[in-house]
């Protein structure tokens, strides 16, 4: 296809683009240097403080990491948290995206439901925890509820704005080709909103991951949040930090995972 015109898409600087795109070797070196510098400063402060309960050195944390990994506790907690994130995220997506499409298409429904969403949105996931415990007790269920709440709003709102910004001309073109209501929503509005929906899903997964830790601090007896909470009570600060680092690393991996499948979700957006 020598006639193909390449369109310029402004580059977005993300960790993913730095590590995958051209010059990635160079960027990986910089990333390693940055993390190395961080670890060095951390070590210096920890040694100067000389109190492992307040701040253990990275070496001690690494040691704790090995021990928890060998015990199998860490894996158990990670799996418990991941399960809660994915179930909540899935619930939020399954409700949020179709609801957003319906409201984007049917104006009367929008007037009815949008005020409710606007009122509920400012309530942070953590404020739902007492209600979640009352309704669902302690364990997986309240955590599903909290992660779903956290993921729902970014997913719903991005999808909704994606849906309402569908081009009138595309809807008219589709009608003139024989498309009826359902086809207009499913085949025109949904794909034209998909870039925004995808953004919502990325943000939603991040929010959900942050919320699971919050939920587990209070409403669960397993998972990374619970592990951090118990370790704090036992003054095992190195385990607290193991939990925190694990949360950071897994969150980044999830974001990178989504970024790496983007080209299959939005093939027409690729260069």
């Amino acid at each position: 296809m020598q006639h193909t015109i390449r369109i310029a898409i402004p580059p977005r600087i993300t960790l993913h683009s730095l590590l995958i795109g051209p010059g990635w070797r160079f960027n990986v070196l910089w990333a390693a240097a940055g993390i190395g510098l961080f670890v060095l400063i951390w070590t210096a402060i920890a040694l100067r403080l000389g109190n492992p309960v307040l701040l253990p050195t990275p070496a001690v944390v690494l040691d704790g990491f090995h021990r928890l990994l060998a015990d199998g506790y860490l894996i158990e907690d990670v799996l418990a948290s991941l399960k809660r994130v994915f179930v909540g995220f899935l619930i939020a997506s399954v409700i949020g995206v179709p609801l957003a499409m319906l409201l984007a298409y049917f104006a009367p429904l929008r007037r009815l439901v949008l005020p409710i969403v606007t009122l509920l949105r400012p309530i942070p996931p953590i404020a739902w925890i007492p209600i979640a415990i009352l309704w669902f007790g302690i364990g997986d269920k309240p955590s599903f509820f909290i992660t779903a709440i956290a993921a729902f709003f970014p997913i719903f709102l991005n999808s909704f704005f994606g849906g309402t910004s569908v081009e009138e001309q595309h809807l008219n073109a589709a009608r003139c080709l024989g498309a009826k209501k359902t086809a207009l929503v499913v085949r025109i509005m949904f794909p034209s909103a998909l870039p925004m929906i995808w953004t919502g899903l990325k943000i939603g997964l991040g929010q959900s991951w942050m919320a699971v830790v919050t939920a587990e601090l209070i409403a669960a007896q397993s998972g990374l949040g619970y592990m951090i909470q118990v370790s704090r009570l036992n003054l095992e600060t190195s385990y607290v930090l193991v939990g925190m680092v694990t949360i950071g690393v897994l969150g980044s991996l999830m974001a990178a995972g989504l970024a790496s499948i983007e080209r299959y979700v939005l093939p027409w957006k690729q260069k």
Partner: protein
Amino acid sequence: MLSQRHMSNSVAAARQGAIRIENLSVEFRRNGNATVAVRDIDIEIAPGEFIALLGPSGCGKSTLLNVIGGMLRATRGEVRIDGGVVKEPSAICGVVFQQHSLFPWMTALDNVAFGPRMLGHASPNSVARELLALVGLEKFASAYPAQLSGGMQQRVGIARALATRPPVLLMDEPFGALDAQTRSIMQEELLKIWWEFKTTVVFVTHDVDEAVYLSDRVLVMSNSPGGIKENIRVDLGRPRAPDVTLGEEYAGLHRRIRRLIRQESLKVFNGIAS
């Protein structure tokens, strides 16, 4: 090339593409004030006729086209296609827009197959392949619109509009965004395709050359409010080669229409200046 089977199918259909516009007016309301976009329009278009709607910008020619396609509601009067009143957009009218109307998330093939798929055609992809071949883009079936040039996008747009075999094809300045060379090639291609399909065409343009070269009849529109100022028959023979633009007849028609358009443009120009 299109198979004989498809051609005979379209002939067998009862729809012919006769358009009858009666006493049509469109008003827009803004801040309580009504602006009349087009007023008291009566037009009759025979099946298979190629009509150019010509006028300066702002004369309501696109408004009129949108009403014919059911995309806009008339304030008074009605449009009938083969006797049926047009109430909403449907597959009776194929529409080619000025630009950016292809679905960017679909490949060229899927764009063209969309109509046949919606209408429950047995093999939408094979219909789409035939039409892409007709506009010379069979090699670009799997390209996304953003990967095609403006001219190619419009060819896909034409193929998509024709894929449902509409009795009426509405074209809203379809070549307006193209460079002069591409545009004249596209005009020739359009005439060839139309000759094969014999569908009724309403073609909106502000380009006098384009209107005269393509159409059987030029409807010159007057400005504010929009109406039909003159109805000019173009007897330049069919099928038409680009050479007709060199003849005396063409020059005469061109001069006459240009004068009419100039009067209308001046009306607006002076109206704004005063």
